[in-house]
């Protein structure tokens, strides 16, 4: 109970005093996570559209596989990316291991399946009558796609938010690929796990509160965009 109260207290103090180290970690977290989400969106949304609107052999199986990958354990993604990015691995030349680049790489791989899958669900959720109407009005493919994306924009926004949430809250990939290097690859989640392992429970809790506060701000911003 004491830890709980102390945690809230510490969180408020860290935020009010703009503690330089916490600020640094928070900004880095945002940079890495938003980069991952940006890159993932570039791949996932078009990929989701292609899968939704094209008919091909094995489509259902592919969608099932994508949905299965939602359950990818973050540590496994971390381990796979470690093996890929290690200097003895296939992409070792990039020297991305233990750098923020590597972390973006790992988080991108982690959230592409979930964002693709939710995009498919979003586009499939559109009333088929609308598709028929658009087609019968003689829309070009581009117009067809644009209309669908506009129709599904809330659900696609939700896909982005879910991707963001998974990326900002995961610790397995961040610690395996980033290495939790102070001032370089330490993000909120890895700092939380470090402080927890050191027995500083109230500081961990405070960092957790800060992470949630960021998520709240992002969500409010997104819903503001939606309502415009």
């Amino acid at each position, binding site marked *: 109970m004491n830890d709980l109260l102390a945690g809230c207290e510490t969180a408020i103090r860290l935020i009010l005093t703009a503690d330089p180290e916490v600020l640094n970690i928070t900004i*880095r977290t945002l940079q890495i996570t938003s980069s991952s989400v940006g890159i993932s969106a570039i791949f996932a949304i078009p990929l989701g559209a292609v899968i939704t609107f094209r008919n091909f052999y094995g489509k259902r199986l592919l969608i099932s596989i994508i949905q299965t990958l939602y359950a990818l354990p973050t540590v496994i993604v971390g381990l796979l990316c470690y093996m890929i990015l290690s200097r003895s691995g296939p992409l070792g030349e990039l020297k991305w291991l*233990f750098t923020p680049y590597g972390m*973006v790489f790992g988080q991108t791989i982690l959230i592409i399946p979930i964002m693709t899958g939710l995009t498919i669900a979003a586009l499939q959720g559109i009333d088929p009558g609308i598709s028929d109407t658009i087609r019968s009005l003689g829309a070009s493919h581009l117009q067809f796609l644009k209309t669908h994306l506009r129709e599904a924009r809330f659900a696609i926004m939700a896909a982005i938010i879910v991707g963001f949430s998974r990326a900002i809250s995961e610790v397995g990939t961040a610690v395996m690929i980033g290495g939790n290097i102070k001032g370089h*690859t330490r993000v909120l989640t890895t700092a939380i796990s470090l402080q927890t*392992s*050191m*027995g500083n429970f109230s500081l961990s809790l405070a960092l957790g509160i800060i992470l949630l506060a960021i998520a709240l701000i992002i969500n409010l911003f997104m819903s503001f965009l939606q309502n415009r």
Partner: protein
Amino acid sequence: MNGSFRMCIIVLVLGTILLVGGALAEKVESLGEHNADRLLIATTTSLDATNLLDLLEEKFKEQTGVTVEHVAVGTGQALEIAKNCDADIVMVHDRAAEDKFIDEGYGKDRRVFGYNYFLLVGPEQDPAHVTGLNGTAAFKAIKQAAATDPRVVFVSRGDNSGTHSREKLLWKKAGYDYAEVNASAWYREAGAGMGQTLTMTQELQGYTLTDSASWATYESNLSLVPLVGNDENFLNVYAVMRVNEEKCPDVNTDIAKRWINFMISDEVQDILSTYGVEKNGVPYFNPGRGSADVMGVTVEETSDKVA
């Protein structure tokens, strides 16, 4: 869908990748230097938890301009990272694992820079009555008491760290088969770092082996007490070595050599002799300089500059 639709998607994807990719590269760049000019150390958690490495890295940067960074993991993982050529330097405390690492050709130029002691810590009531015993006798007492007293629990790191391998060695020296100990109900394998293992030991009111530097760092959050220390089998020697450039051509050999020489330099050895004294009364790590006989290594290993 037909070709133009496909083209449209491809153009869309490539276009945005290029655009965002460019903006992104610049953005991520500002997060820190790219690692071409950095020295990366794979190390054990005790050197990190005491903040000693942060201090030394800063000093080294002042003198050489080189950014040094470290990833703090168990000794087992640190050596594995180095074997994959992902670190330039290894700083660990497991002589047997180090020997193997060097014999296999991965490590070079080992120097011993400091030492401290392992401690057997446990609950104040000490249900296994280990207080006053020596190292191996204490391990025997725990195993025997655990057979009849359910309060006696031993928590192991269980993570192939240097501390874990010392613990295995101690069970062996006490005359037990580790596999048998490991399978016992009173033996809990945490599979975690030192801090988490200590927290778990505290919750279970059990016994665990820890190093004195980590103990000094975490002690204030714990109600456990050190019960056995200062035993010849509890000596904990820290070594630094570089990754062999013949196995890993990309390693930063020149700077790695400078780091090793820096670690055995008078400057660092002086820092070690005082670091932590203010807080604990004793240093976290005793300097290796002049203590070759205490640590059971050659004088050359503590003082010979790497050429």
